[in-house]
């Protein structure tokens, strides 16, 4: 296997058990790879299986069948606590609904993954402040989630996703609950992470324009990949500019 591969999914099936005798298959044997440093978007109709796929990529769920390696790690063989460590260190999640921990201020939210990683208090606070500064949230770092706007919450969530300097960022409709201007700002942050830090990003979106901003667009329909196309973003072009 090439060592510039971040994600390698082969023949991934996922079924949900919805009461005997029914097994409801949502993903019907997907194959695709994502290179290190790639910015990929996944599009498709509602119910096509995007989130289901994302949960498998994020090691939150296991495929029913198929092989999946993330940064060279065989997910199928990993134990629960190994998956915890993997999610902690390798993956940064950004959710549509932000999923900040209630009654816990922005700073503490960003510190959380570092705390689970066993980082010392002073060190993680310092890093959390730095990450919040990057998303321009320094002013509001002592505010609890219920005192922040949607866009602000999502910026905190992105800072939190970056906490342990993950190999890959997984964002499931991160702008879905935001107005277009705020969504734009969030997208700009992703571009910055992609370009400046070379992060691998997998983005699920309903917006055709946003997907066009990525390097590669994977289209899902009814649990199958029905197409792959290049986005308008072009690293080479950017570098030439």
């Amino acid at each position, binding site marked *: 296997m090439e060592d510039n591969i971040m994600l390698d999914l082969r023949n991934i099936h996922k079924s949900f058990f919805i009461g005997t005798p029914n097994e409801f298959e949502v993903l019907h044997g997907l194959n695709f790879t994502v290179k290190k440093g790639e910015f990929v978007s996944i599009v498709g109709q509602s119910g096509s299986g995007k989130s289901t796929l994302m*949960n498998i990529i994020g090691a*939150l*769920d296991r495929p029913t069948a198929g092989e999946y390696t993330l940064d060279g790690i065989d997910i199928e063989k990993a134990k629960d*606590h190994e998956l915890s460590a993997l*999610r902690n260190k390798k993956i940064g999640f950004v959710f549509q609904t932000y999923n900040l*921990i209630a009654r816990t201020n922005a700073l503490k939210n960003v510190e959380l993954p570092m705390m*689970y990683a*066993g980082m010392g208090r002073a060190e993680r606070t310092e890093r959390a402040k730095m990450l919040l500064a990057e998303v321009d949230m320094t002013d509001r770092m002592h505010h609890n989630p219920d005192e922040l706007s949607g866009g602000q919450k999502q910026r905190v969530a992105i800072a939190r996703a970056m906490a342990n300097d993950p190999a890959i960022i997984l964002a499931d409709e991160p702008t879905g609950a935001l107005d277009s201007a705020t969504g734009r700002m969030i997208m700009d942050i992703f571009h910055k992470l992609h370009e400046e830090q070379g992060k691998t990003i997998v983005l699920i979106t309903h917006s055709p324009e946003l997907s066009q901003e990525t390097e590669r667009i994977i289209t899902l329909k009814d649990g199958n990949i029905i197409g792959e196309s290049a986005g308008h973003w072009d690293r080479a072009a950017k570098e030439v500019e």
Partner: protein
Amino acid sequence: MLFTENILVALAGLKANIMRSLLTMLGIIIGIASVIAIMTVGNSITSIVNSTMQDLGANNLEMGVVQKSQDNKTSDSGANYGTGYVRDMTDQDLITQDMLDAFKAEFPDDIKYVLKYENVGEKGKVTEGSKSANVQVIGYNKDNFEFKDKKIIAGRGFLNRDFENAKKVCLVTDKLVERLYNGDNDAIIGKQIEANVGGSYYSYYVVGVYEYVQEQFSFGVSDNPTTELIIPYETARVANHNQNKGDYYFTLVTSVNTDNDEFATKVRDFFNINYYSRNDAYEVMVVSMTSMMNQMNTMIGAIQLALSAIAGISLVVGGIGVMNIMLVSITERTKEIGTRKALGATNGSIRLQFITESVVICLIGGIIGIIFGIVLGTVAVKLMGYEAAVSLSSIVIAVGFSMAIGIFFGYYPANKAAKLNPIDALRYE
């Protein structure tokens, strides 16, 4: 590190739902408060009883002439069976001074004093002009007088001849002098005072004034307490027209080195073998103060334990309440649990988080309960008129117990949270 973080999260959660948290803690609060209150009252009573008994003399043996147990005698005369009663006590049944002297000679190292007293009247009154003081007129024998060791603050104590000649002399308290002679202790020395006991008058020369010490078993402070007007034992017998050849009740004060339980047997045997073997109805019984004290302590301890156990039921109910609220809280926070797992929380750290939360609830409840319990117990003991003795050990146990309840009743919900599948938790609506 995770530990303090968990406590902070737990506290924030409790603060967000103050009413709910308090209601949840109620069972724990009530349970711990009642246990602490019961322990405080029990311990106070125990220490009061013990110190009172210590005052009376922990080295004392109580000795008395009692009915013989009739088991082997009444089998053929059914009439007496069960009551043990044969006949009234007569002179022949009493312990005379000669017997006591022989007894003292037998155990010179063990016996320090043989206390005798003769009560003339408990509800006496001494009047001076318009003023009066309540007195108990009581006769002490020489041993008793020496043992009680009253602090003489004016005049003198009793002399040998006062006892031997049954002199009509008395000692009064400074309290009495305070009431009748405006506290002029010297003025009363040598005066003859008259005590009216239920219409009978007894007059004695005051030879000394001793310091009044309030007894521990007295409710509140009276400005006219009944104090002892002490006269020699022999004088008291004269006053009572007591012609008996002896007495049937004594207190023995033994030396510090004497093992009282062992000595009690020796005393009983001495009298029963030498003087009562042919007595058809009476014998001598001896009880040591220490064994009485132990019995009393065991009894109080048992009552305390029983009451605490009943109060403890409320702790179990409280624990179940905590478990219930933890289950509710975990359901409410399913999405949070999912998020934490997505961020890398292990099952163990989730479990620890919720156990910590349940322990924090129980601990706060426990501490509130301890405070309530101490206040309640102290007030109760104060109302009874004593000093409260809060036991440190009961507080330590209460703290430990509430933590244990937190762990025990928090484990199941916490484990349930820990075992949630991350994606199911995240998708939970």
